[in-house]
């Protein structure tokens, strides 16, 4: 069970959170081609190593945020707010 440092509440057990998939996916415009659209829907990187992903602290503050997690060790390297990739928060754990 991961110990996730919510940027708003502090570190809590994974059971308080919901995983939200990758954080790097951008929603295309309506004019996107079928290929662009299906890649947005279905294509994921399955990264080995540092991976940007979204988490929801549902049983806490109710806020979404981003996590940079190493998929091989589960080490959480950074957390940062939605839409704020320039404002990385050191986890300090």
């Amino acid at each position, binding site marked *: *069970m*991961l110990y996730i440092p919510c940027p708003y509440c502090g570190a809590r057990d994974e059971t308080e959170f919901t995983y939200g998939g990758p954080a790097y996916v951008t929603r295309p415009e309506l004019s996107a081609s079928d290929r662009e659209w299906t890649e947005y829907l279905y294509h994921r990187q399955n990264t080995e190593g540092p991976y940007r992903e979204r988490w929801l602290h549902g049983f806490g503050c109710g806020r979404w945020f981003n996590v940079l997690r190493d998929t091989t060790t589960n080490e959480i390297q950074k957390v940062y707010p939605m839409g704020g990739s320039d404002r990385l928060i050191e986890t300090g754990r």
Partner: protein
Amino acid sequence: MSARGPYRLKERADAVPVEFRFDGRALRGVEGDTVASALLANGVRVVSRSFKFHRPRGIFSAGVEEPNALVQLHTGVHGIPCARATLVPLTTGLEVASQAGWPSVSFDVLRAIDGVHSVFAAGFYNRTFMWPSWHMYEPIIRKLAGFGRAPTGPDPDRYETRHAHCDVLVIGGGTAGIKAARTAAAGGQRVFLVEQHEDFGADVSTLEALPNTQVLARTTAVGYYDHDLVALAQGVAGGGGAALPRERLWLVRASRVVLATGALEQPLIFSNNDRPGIMLAGAALQYLRRHGVAPGREVVLATNNDSAYHTARELRLAGVNVVALVDSRESAHRALLQEMRGVGIAVHGHCMPINTQGFGALSGVTIALLGGKGASNLRRLACDTLLVSGGWSPTLHLFAQAGGKLQFSESGRTFEPVADAPRIEIVGSAGQIPRGELGERVSRVGNTARQWVDLRHDVTVSDIELAVRENFTAVEHIKRYTTLGMSVDQGKLGQAPAVEVIARARGIQPAELGHTTFRPPFVPVTLGTMVGRSVGALYAPNRRTSLYGLQAAAGALFEDFGEWQRAAAFPRPGEAREQAMAREVQRIRHGVGVYDASPLGKIELIGPDALDFADRFYINNLKTLHMRRARYGIMLRETGIIFDDGTVVVLDADRVLLTTTSSGAGRVAAWLEEWRQCEWPQARVVVMPVTDQWATVALTGQHARAIFERLQPGCDVSNEAFPHLGFRATTLFGREARIYRVSFSGELTYEINVPSDQGPQLWTALLEEGRSFGIGPYGVDALLHARMEKGFLHIGADTDGTTVPDDVGFGKPAAAKLRHYIGKRSLQLPENMRPDRLQLVGLAGERAAALPVGSHLRLADSHEATDGWVTSAGLLSTNGTPVAIAMLRAGRRQTDRSVTVHDGGRIVTTARVVAPLFYDPTGGRMNA
């Protein structure tokens, strides 16, 4: 079975006797005994039968690694199979039973299997019991194997889960662990100290007294999980019964973990190394020190390292007759040899056991001089006990579970850490492999089919050699093929020699092999401990509406719908559920009824952008929606799949009220919130789920208007003033109320929302006002039937994870709305526009037979396995004919064609494809 007693060398004057039973025999131990020490003290040699060959087995160890002494505790619902006698504290009246052997564990007729053991090589069961099916043989083979008996009923005991945080978690209560705990506690840190046995290696009372420490005995660290979460299984002293939980699961998040887990002694491998009376030397020392119990009367020690010398000396000084010490090394340290001479123990250097004698229990051991080819200088030593020591392996299971890498060390001849783990400190004997030279520990002579590597699963050296001959090379594969290390003890005993046996068979170095994965739990954990309090009524939350009590009084049959308990129907005495449903449908079709719709999802969107925000989620255009009018809407996932449906009402310029399906209330609110936060953070809107704040009662039927008028005297309830899809925010019983005119049944319906606590008042008032109209309640069954007759969608029943709007007749609004709403782009993908997609249709049964929900449909000229299936069905309330809603391939083009209906592998009936609308096709009743 018993040799001559007593084996208890010294008994304290104040020792408290403890009576217990083993296989029905009354025996006596003392307080502080484990079951194993008490059995040894009573001279019980044979405690179990081996898994395959039914060979007699005795107590082999004094701890978690015990492969033989697995016993059944208690009987009936309290029964515990496969308990390790070495860990179970002896309690008064404890019923202990051996698990295998017929007629008894000491005389087992199945020992005959041992005579033909060569048949039972690795893979024997997999190859032999194939025809016609393994399942035919499994019950009898399981019985022969001796797994013990499962409890006969639900567990009457209570279990508990606790969560804790600490700065330092010390695992292992020996001297090294206690020292580490003391140091950390003195520095003011929050410390956990856990020990799997009853006793610690030293007095811990001063530690226990500190406010910042938690000291737990009978507690095993069973799993090391991500981010330093360690699971502890605690046997609660005096637990069981009503007062205390029997076991407790601790989930401890530790900033630092100290492993003071000690080392496991390794056995020696030689022919017939499994007889009762053969035991680990270190275990004998523990029984002597902790319990004053001697392992036997005539003891031989066989070792490949220094540690057994001290054991030999201590046993000798305690008065045990130590016949000889056999050391496989060419020469031991001179001081050790002098020590042995001093206490009169003969040492046989450069020798090791190559065979043993005895039938029930051990009677002698044959040793031989090593070196050269084969064995020489064979010598037989009479003894009833052979203590073996094949060196020590640090207990690093938790380290490996934590992700630490281990490698076989050529010098230590065991696995040791390759690198440090960031938050784990290893102390005591778990951290230091004795660097002294180790001698031979696997005999090179003798019958390999009688050299046990895994005592529990009866895996011998010859099984491993066979696996290698059959081209199994990886340890993980050899493990699975031979079942080496796969039993209750999970290969804790003798992992290091096993690796050497595999390496030797393959002709490589052990370090090239690696090890099998160390998985939690470290020791078996009861299911009770895992689930804690989450059983029975506490397994899941039980949601009831404010009208639960009134409905119960009215005879409601409640059922789980999602997380809610809802009234399925209100059967009268002697009435079946189906009959009650049919009667309730007639009530709303011809009279008037009330229905508790409180679980219906309700979400408010608040803020200047509320309507614009809502409009991004629906296939329906909300921009043309008039204030305080309701519109039906469908929501999609981004993949275009139908997600939920409900109504949208604009309450105010900055306030929109959505309804969702009852089961979708939580999902939809989370979905809206996710998009608000992650995609459109600039939207000025707040998502507020309000389902629980409101009680919702649907008043349905042709008399609904008259009753509603009585509820709100003086208000204009005419169809013109309050038409279908109208909405009113008003006052009832002096408080806010929200009233929809919507219909899911096809009848005139007012859906009245009042604050939750006023639900009973509303329900009672409606029944009162409606009495003269014959009003009564109806349940979910009747509503779902009525809506099926109208062909109204039941999301999740008629639709599934592939359904897009056009499949169910909503293709036009979805295409007409130009805005980029969620899922819109996906509707234009080729897959979602295929002409042969499943489409919603109605079916009219062509025979009297019902159309079973879930039955498959086939068109006459079809080459497909299935052309669709029935999603909802019933007998029409007007004339009793069978009708259904179905999803059918290119269904809208099949109107008037006949389909065969398949259920349980045969055709049950045929049906004609019709429009999915069986009742009041013009909608006159609902719009009246």
